[in-house]
């Protein structure tokens, strides 16, 4: 028990970095995802293709490779990044691609009648999107976004390989110096679980509310 207590301060320090990394990359990814989704559904050939290639690269290669690439290969082209920045960029780009597909599915799920009705009262495309389509689409995709955020939290542990001092890396360091593998990695697992739990509850709540809604609708 005492040994556990001696590890905790360091692990909690790492936890803070994990939370910071997850939240920041989630916020950036939401912006990237929304922009990319609009590029994907736009009629503009160039935007459409750029978005398509981006999503394809991100989904077609492992996150581990992407992180290594940003941290070790980018400096060769003169882009030097701290480990934290590299992880932040890597996770944001990764999550952004997945969120883009979720947003796109959400927008597509809103019937074209809604857009036509918005047009019919004189709205232009951007106002129709902002006022009519997106509010409904985002409500529909909140549960999958929540699930994706939980995955992001766990994926942030991969930043350990480029030596970001987040929870996983802190645990690894402690383990190699103290050989208390059982205690340390159990603690690391428990902390991840505790972090995920409130997100999981929120997703559950949203899913339940949505199924109630559609129950009324039909």
């Amino acid at each position, binding site marked *: 028990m005492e040994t556990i207590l001696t590890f905790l301060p360091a692990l909690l320090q790492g936890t803070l970095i994990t939370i910071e990394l997850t939240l920041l990359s989630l916020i950036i990814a939401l912006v990237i995802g929304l922009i990319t989704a609009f590029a994907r559904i736009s009629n503009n050939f160039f935007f459409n293709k750029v978005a398509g290639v981006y999503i394809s690269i991100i989904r077609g290669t492992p996150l581990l490779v992407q992180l290594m690439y940003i941290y070790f290969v980018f400096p060769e082209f003169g882009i030097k990044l701290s480990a934290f920045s590299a992880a932040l960029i890597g996770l944001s780009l990764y999550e952004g691609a997945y969120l883009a597909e979720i947003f796109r599915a959400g927008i597509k799920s809103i019937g074209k009648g809604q857009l036509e009705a918005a047009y019919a*009262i004189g709205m232009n495309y951007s106002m129709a999107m902002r006022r009519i389509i997106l509010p409904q689409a985002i409500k529909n995709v909140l549960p999958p976004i929540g699930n994706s955020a939980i995955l992001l939290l766990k994926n942030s542990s991969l930043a350990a390989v480029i030596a970001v001092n987040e929870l996983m890396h802190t645990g690894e360091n402690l383990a190699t110096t103290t050989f208390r593998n059982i205690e340390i990695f159990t603690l690391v697992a428990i902390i991840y679980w505790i972090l995920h739990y409130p997100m999981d509850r929120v997703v559950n709540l949203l899913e339940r509310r949505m199924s109630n809604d559609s129950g009324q609708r039909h």
Partner: protein
Amino acid sequence: MIQVKDIKKSFHQTEVLKNISFQVEQGEVVVIIGPSGSGKSTLLRMMNFLEIPDEGQIIIDSKKIHFDRKRRKHRNDAEICSLRSDVSMVFQNFNLFEHKTALGNVIEGSIMVRKMAKEKAIHQGKEFLQKVGLEGKENNYPHELSGGQKQRVAIARALAMRPKAILFDEPTSALDPELVGEVLAVIKKLAEEGMTMVIVTHEMGFAKEVGDRVIFMDGGYIVESGPPKKVFENPESERLKQFLSRFSNVV
């Protein structure tokens, strides 16, 4: 008021509208009938630019828009968007904004497009809901309303734009038979008040009753048009006779 000139439209290889011209006068109620696939809905949607013609002209209240194949306009075009608010549309499937209440649906255009002050829009919106007989339903969401009520909200939403004309695209086709009457009654009231309307419908009795003029379309052409009495009682063309014979028990 609305003038359609030499309109042509194809979807892929199929020619849906083959050189259509007609006009709608101020205060006139024009009813378009015809078998499904005759292009009548496409024609109506063009008057609101939800479909863009391949060729031809559409003139709304002396504002003329020219279409040709070389310079294709998009339905998101700024010029088109501004014209649209003058001609409202009521859809077969209502298309109410699902995330907004009945009142929210009605005031959306007044506030966002017409830039009306919120209190004024709400005041006016309640009046329109009252007009279509939906007093007390202001705060209900679409999923809490019956089909007939939804369509009446949609009509109130169209009215709130204070349009110069309203287009109805089969407004009762998605309704249970017992709910058709309440919607037709509202449209009839608007006709009596002198609202300019173009109505695509399969309700022949209604067409005969409210129409100032009936247009019969088939195969992408206007086959026959005239006052309802003449079109329904003395049809000239074989195709119209054939079409009407299928409704003989209704008319």
